[in-house]
């Protein structure tokens, strides 16, 4: 069957999915996820990945482990991912508090605009830019992911695949966070955790005789521990230290006019440039939406100073262009970061980690080049179910975009109240919910203790300025890396130099050292 049949089947898998409450279930789930995402994004202290992590086990309990479960579950998670970036702008504009880290730059112009009585307009600009960036990024994803996958499949043999994984990890470790050395330590710890009880011997290595470790560290325990518990521990300690809150006064959205055609024409170049920046950054593993927002904002600022009319406000004084540049950049990361996920199976940020986790837990869909093989390699007369699934995922993303353009803006303007929920009440509840979610998956108290342990590790890493993301991504890729290397070694007839014998593999290895050295020099004291 050709590409077209797969696309049609993928679209139909979404539109004709089993109806629930009269709506196809996938569309219902995308909508639910999207609205939840906006709400969560608008709540300072909560972020998209947190909601994704907690939702995942509940979703799996509802939909089970069958192939039919994949699209509703991924649809919901994708909805959260997209909603959260939109929602993050709400408290940034109304309370001067970013709802998600990548919305920090939005406070710079959003809150001043709100103070001038233009809160509603600021929210409209944020929403328009966010939705534009997001849609652009998704289009790039749909166009690029299949080609990248085909290239990988055609030119990369086992040694090259090993080298590519090494390059991704080297890139992630040296780019995230301020310190290359700490990034590499974080990655090393993640790899080490992935080594426990894995390997090919029947003896579960590095378990110190603990039978609780014999199955390895549950992915959820390590990932949720470091990412969520670590963050909650730190946030609670910050509250513990703080004497009283110093929040900026809230501003209600009030009235405001719709954006005019002239407004849009004026904003369009900023949105376009930022969307491009965000998409490029999103496609690279490890460089997150916060950096995209920063880059988008600073690039726009440079442009703006050169061209702004005298009467217009400066960046930082409530310039609409500042909001547009930030929100377009951070929202355009979410589509592009699925390029490495779907074509290589490599997650680039925390949201992608949870999508991979979902695919992994449900099974039946293994992200990587094989997903894009026509006929699944089985025969021309047969559909590749994984490829149908990919087009189903793409369709869900565009459903989310359609929602964003239609009801996203209205909903966004109604969730401002979320920022008033006190964190010291909310975060402990999030924590119990996370631990319960892990328990229902693992059904063992040992898994809870491990999660708490990794929570302390994540807390410690944050306190010493070590980014936890290389840990998480290395933990997820670690087993794959070791297995691929073993296979490459065996397949080449036990050649110890398998990483250096082919030009592509050698190039990847040289680039890995290059990226570390470059970032190290850049961070010179």
């Amino acid at each position: 069957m050709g590409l077209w049949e797969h696309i049609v089947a993928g679209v139909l898998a979404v539109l004709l999915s089993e109806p629930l409450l009269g709506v196809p279930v996938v569309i219902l789930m995308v909508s639910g996820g999207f609205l939840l995402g906006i709400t969560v994004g608008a709540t300072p202290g909560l972020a998209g990945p947190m909601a994704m992590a907690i939702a995942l086990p509940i979703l799996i309990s509802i939909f089970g482990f069958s192939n039919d479960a994949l699209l509703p579950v991924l649809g919901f998670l994708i909805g959260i991912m997209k909603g959260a970036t939109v929602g993050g702008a709400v408290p940034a504009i109304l309370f001067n508090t970013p709802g998600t880290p990548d919305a920090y730059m939005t406070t710079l112009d959003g809150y001043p605009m709100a103070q001038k009585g233009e809160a509603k307009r600021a929210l409209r600009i944020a929403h328009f830019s966010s939705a534009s960036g997001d849609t652009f990024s998704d289009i790039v994803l749909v166009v690029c992911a299949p080609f990248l996958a085909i290239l990988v499949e055609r030119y990369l043999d086992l040694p090259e695949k090993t080298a590519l994984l090494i390059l991704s990890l080297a890139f992630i470790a040296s780019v995230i966070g301020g310190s290359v050395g700490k990034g590499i330590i974080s990655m090393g710890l993640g790899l080490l955790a992935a080594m426990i009880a894995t390997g090919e011997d029947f003896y579960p290595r590095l378990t110190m005789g603990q039978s609780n470790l014999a199955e390895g560290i549950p992915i959820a325990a390590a990932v949720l521990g470091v990412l969520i518990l670590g963050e909650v521990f730190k946030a609670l300690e910050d509250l513990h230290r703080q004497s009283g809150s110093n929040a900026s006064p809230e501003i209600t959205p009030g009235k405001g006019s719709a954006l005019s055609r002239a407004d849009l024409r004026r904003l369009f170049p900023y949105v376009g440039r930022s969307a491009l920046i965000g998409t490029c950054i999103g496609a690279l593993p490890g460089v997150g939406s916060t950096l995209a927002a920063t880059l988008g904002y600073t690039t726009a600022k440079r442009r703006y100073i050169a061209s702004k009319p005298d009467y217009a406000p400066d960046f930082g004084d409530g310039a609409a262009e500042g909001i547009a540049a930030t929100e377009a950049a951070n929202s355009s990361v979410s589509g592009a970061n699925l390029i490495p996920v779907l074509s290589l199976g490599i997650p680039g940020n925390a949201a992608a980690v949870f999508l991979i986790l979902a695919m992994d837990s449900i099974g039946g869909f293994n992200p990587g080049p094989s997903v894009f093989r026509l006929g699944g390699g089985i025969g021309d007369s047969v559909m590749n179910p994984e490829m149908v699934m990919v087009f189903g995922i793409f369709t869900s993303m565009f459903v989310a975009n359609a929602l964003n353009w239609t009801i996203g803006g209205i909903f966004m303007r109604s969730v401002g109240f979320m920022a008033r929920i006190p964190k010291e009440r909310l975060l402990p509840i999030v924590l119990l919910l996370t631990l319960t979610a892990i328990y229902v998956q693992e059904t063992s108290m040992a898994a809870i203790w491990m999660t708490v342990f990794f929570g302390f590790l994540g807390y410690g890493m944050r306190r010493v300025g070590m980014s936890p993301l290389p840990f998480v991504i290395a933990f997820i890729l670690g087993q794959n890396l070791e297995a691929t290397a073993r296979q490459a070694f065996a397949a080449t007839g036990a050649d110890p130099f398998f990483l250096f014998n082919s030009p592509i593999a050698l190039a990847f290895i040289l680039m890995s050292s290059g990226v570390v050295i470059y970032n190290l020099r850049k961070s010179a004291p």
Partner: protein
Amino acid sequence: MKAILKTFALTAALSIVSAAGAVADGTGWKPSGPIKMIIAFAAGGGADTQARLIADDIQAATGWEVIPEQVTGKGGVNALLALKDMPADGTAIAMVVTESLGYNAAAAGNAGIVPSDFAGLTTTAGFQMGVVAKADKGWSSFADTIAAAKEGNLRFGTMSPKLSDLAFLLGEAQGVEFNIVQVAGGKAVMNGVQAGDMDLGFMAGIQGKGVASGDLVNLASALSEPLVQTPDAPTLADLGVQFNADGYFVFVAPGGMDTAARDALTAAIVEAANNGKASAMIEKAFGGAVTIQGSELDALLQSDYEAASELMQAVQ
């Protein structure tokens, strides 16, 4: 008179109800609480789906609460270790493959897993294990493959240490050397063969559709008998290897289990494999249910375990 009739009717009704109850739970045995069903396979695959359908079927037919739980890794040894210390009262069972209690238990000597520690309940289905390559390699018989292997080492994909041993012996018997690439699971062998990372490999039924459409070829049967789909392909014995990859999905419980519980659980699983929702799935994916039970199963598990050390000796 009316009263007598009424009593009679009531008694009759009661006896029907109790008879139905007895049929529903076999020998009249009932678990003391929910039954934990350990699944030794990754979520979402054919084996996992089979186990979960059987759990649903049992629950629907008997009303016992069955709670599936994944314990994966080390070829089923992890699942067996988890099961070993559970109470032997029928509230804990596991689905593994016969290889877990055979070769893998023997190879994991330190883990302390022996067949006598477990009570076998029943097998559910066998594997159609073949040696498979892509059709566009142009090999129409196993002899073609060997000719190609003499030109340069071929990559042979396997999914367990036992199969790696068999691949090695197969090469040795045919006077060639394979680069044996061991991966996790049949799906990974399939992907490796498709992507060209491997030239040929063992597949345990997953190749069915591809062979039917002519994109894959069953070069040989890894079983003691010919493959159902490709009866002309030689068996490993025909190719000079005295071992085979015969294997089944099997349900086991902790050893020392009371007979009533063992019989009731076996009956419930057999019923699900033959007539439940699971039976349709087993038919489609594994070519029909195979339910070896009781002493026959015990003997099978014991002999697999003992044969393992011979195989390990042979590859030294």
